[in-house]
């Protein structure tokens, strides 16, 4: 399943399927992008990051894609598991500002 940031803040996915969470970032000068996962009652936790000189980066079961032309970032989760249920945030940073700006978040829920 797929989501598009602000327009679809909740994504429901069948267990075992792949999830795609999308994010549109705001600043074309941003040079570092991060995905965070926030489980209920906890703080955001780093998942994966990517620098602006790359367009793809893979981790364990997760892949981040960056399209600078349209200022779009996506997080792909392979074989979604119940433990993936959380709110996912994309974040951007431009080094001149030395601060990270968070997107609005997408809630991922898993159907058994």
């Amino acid at each position, binding site marked *: 399943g797929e989501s598009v940031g602000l327009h679809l803040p909740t994504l429901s996915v069948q267990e075992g399927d792949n999830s795609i969470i999308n994010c549109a970032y705001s600043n074309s000068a941003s*040079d*570092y992008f*991060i995905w965070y996962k*926030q489980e209920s*009652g*906890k*703080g*955001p*936790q*780093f998942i994966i*990051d990517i*620098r602006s000189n790359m367009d793809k980066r893979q981790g364990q079961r997760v892949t981040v894609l960056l399209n600078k032309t349209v200022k779009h970032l996506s997080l792909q989760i392979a074989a979604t598991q119940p433990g993936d249920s959380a*709110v996912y*945030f994309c974040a951007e*940073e*431009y*080094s001149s500002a*030395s*601060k*990270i*700006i*968070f997107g*609005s*978040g997408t809630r991922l829920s898993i159907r058994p």
Partner: protein
Amino acid sequence: DTAVSQTPKYLVTQMGNDKSIKCEQNLGHDTMYWYKQDSKKFLKIMFSYNNKELIINETVPNRFSPKSPDKAHLNLHINSLELGDSAVYFCASSFHRVAGNTIYFGEGSWLTVV
């Protein structure tokens, strides 16, 4: 061996009161932050300190005053609490302030103003 710890986790208080949230990190980081998360889960940076020096101060009311006694601690004091201050406040830390350094968050402090 909690990395970023903040207290209290829950705080319910009346309007007009003054309260503090404490934060400590044992990661050896030199940059610490306070973020506010509202009821819609929107995370916004409030303050950032680097080696006890304030480097980011977003448009936060003067009632909010951060204090960093050393680089491992960043406390948040709030005067004259208002209903709109109800939120989850997250402390965080990172190595340095340049791009590419992962931010580690605490578990959050749930503040409810009644």
